[in-house]
């Protein structure tokens, strides 16, 4: 696809929601970090599954179940390939990124001892804070925070000096949902390997924006949510290295993950099944696989180029409004077009309500990053999070909405 095609800017045709109106205005959906929209192909895949194939997997010998089992297995293979060619066995379907993190933190408990250290960054989502906090509480380990500079980017060289072999796990987000900053996961990985710490990467925000290769990163764990990458709600993925999954005891217990069960004791199926107790979100897994197909057809280089156009256009517009304060983004090349901002002293909720009256959906609040808000010294921010399907022409309407906010509040 050439730049000219990208500038034609017609990707939104693939997304039924983007054809609708809110408040009598065309919907301008800029809350993509909360959840992305779904293309027709994904929606149709889910409907089709229920209309034509629906059946449980693995457990029955009849044709319908055989079809579904095959499709479910193919979905797993597709995810394995999508993340950089991992093993089939290294992909666990979960209900979302949050569950994936909880799974690992639960299983790590047997590996963590008093005075071990777990490192996270100051910009983590609550989902990548609380489970480690609990793990530390349960084991006596210490939760340590990677230093951040005043450009709101991680201080990797200082981190490298601070971390020691007491560090057993480093859990960082690949891309921040609040600031849009891309963390240098390769450098972090190198540092982890040096001290022998495992690396957990929260990829919830990354996969809709950039090609991920967990093997190149050399991540031990990588977690993501289907609904944040043009796929359905209720499905997520945990990638984990095979030997780690083999060492771990199972998380949830139930059907489909056992080998032999008596009232006295039970043995478990091999990975990946050991970690998928109960009927999985089958339609969700197939929908996710379809979203991966969709992304492959669209191509990440196209997504990246389009997002760069959106980025530049938005920043250019903001440069003309002195009342707007964007957090971070000093170095555009470390960022995706996800912006936390405030306008003078207007409260973000009020900004969000005013934007909504223009049909613009943005989020206001702490973005599940209360510790980051404490560092920024604000109770909340407004956040515009673009996806590649957003239109460059919509930036004019954002400008109008900003001006309206100022008109109402700063007159």
């Amino acid at each position, binding site marked *: 696809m050439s730049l000219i095609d990208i500038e034609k800017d017609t990707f939104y045709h693939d997304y039924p929601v983007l054809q609708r109106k809110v408040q009598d205005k065309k919907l301008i959906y800029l809350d993509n970090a909360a959840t992305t929209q779904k293309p027709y192909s994904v929606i149709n895949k889910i409907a089709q599954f229920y209309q034509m194939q629906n059946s449980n997997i693995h457990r029955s010998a009849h044709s319908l179940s055989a079809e579904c089992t095959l499709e479910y297995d193919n979905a797993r293979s597709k995810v394995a390939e999508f993340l950089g060619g991992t093993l089939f066995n290294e992909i666990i379907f979960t209900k979302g990124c949050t569950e994936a993190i909880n799974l690992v933190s639960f299983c790590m408990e047997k590996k963590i001892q008093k005075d071990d250290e777990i490192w996270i960054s100051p910009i983590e989502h609550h989902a990548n804070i609380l489970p480690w906090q609990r793990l530390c509480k349960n084991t006596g380990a210490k939760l340590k925070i990677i230093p951040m500079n005043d450009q709101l980017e991680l201080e990797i060289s200082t981190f490298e000096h601070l971390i020691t072999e007491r560090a057993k796990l480093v859990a960082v987000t690949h891309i921040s949902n609040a600031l849009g900053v891309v963390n240098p996961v390769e450098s972090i990985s190198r540092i982890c390997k040096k001290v022998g710490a495992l690396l957990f990467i929260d990829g919830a925000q990354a996969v809709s924006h950039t090609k991920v290769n967990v093997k190149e990163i050399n991540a031990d764990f990588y977690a993501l949510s289907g609904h944040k990458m043009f796929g359905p709600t209720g499905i997520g993925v945990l990638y984990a290295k095979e030997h780690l999954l083999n060492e771990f005891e199972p998380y949830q217990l139930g059907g489909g993950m056992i080998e032999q069960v008596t009232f006295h004791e039970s043995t478990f199926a091999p990975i990946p099944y050991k970690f998928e107790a109960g009927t999985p979100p089958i339609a969700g897994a197939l929908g996710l696989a379809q979203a991966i197909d969709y992304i492959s057809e669209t191509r990440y280089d196209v997504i990246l180029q389009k997002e760069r156009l959106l980025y530049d256009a938005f920043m250019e517009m903001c440069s003309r409004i002195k009342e707007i304060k964007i957090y971070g983004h000093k170095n555009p090349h470390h960022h995706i077009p996800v912006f936390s901002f405030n306008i003078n002293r207007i*409260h*973000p*909720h*009020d900004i969000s*309500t005013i934007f909504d*009256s223009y049909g613009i959906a943005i989020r206001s609040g702490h973005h599940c990053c*209360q510790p980051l808000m404490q560092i920024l010294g604000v*109770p909340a921010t407004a956040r515009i999070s673009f996806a590649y399907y957003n239109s460059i022409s919509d930036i004019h309407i954002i400008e109008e909405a900003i001006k309206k906010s100022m008109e109402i*509040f700063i007159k």
Partner: protein
Amino acid sequence: MELESLYQEVIMDHNKNPRCFHKLSEYTHTADGFNPLCGDKVQVYLLIKDNKIVDIGFTGVGCAISQASASMMCQIVKNYTIEEILELSKIFREGLTKDIPIDKDIGSLEALLSVKKFPMRVKCATLAWHTLENSLKGEKHG
């Protein structure tokens, strides 16, 4: 336009110049209110003597609606009895959440009823009132 009814003159005035925006030096009741979804915070302080509100103040951070609502609440309830406050709170909150018209006079609070058209903002408008009610349930203090 509905936006104008939400951010009308009187509300913007209370937001800019909140009345009673201070902690009381002497108070008998207090409570903290917090909306974890958006981070709005309010603290309400009451000095109650003989079942009557003698003085009231609030502090906190939040959006225009939550700040204005707290300010207007403090202004209106002074000299009310506890029973009168609880009744007004009920009427006001029902006015914002139920589909029945209010038949009582709620004075300047009327302006806040426009919030009803913005369902995600209703909690902003009721936070101060919930906190006030909680303070009345709590242990006497001071």
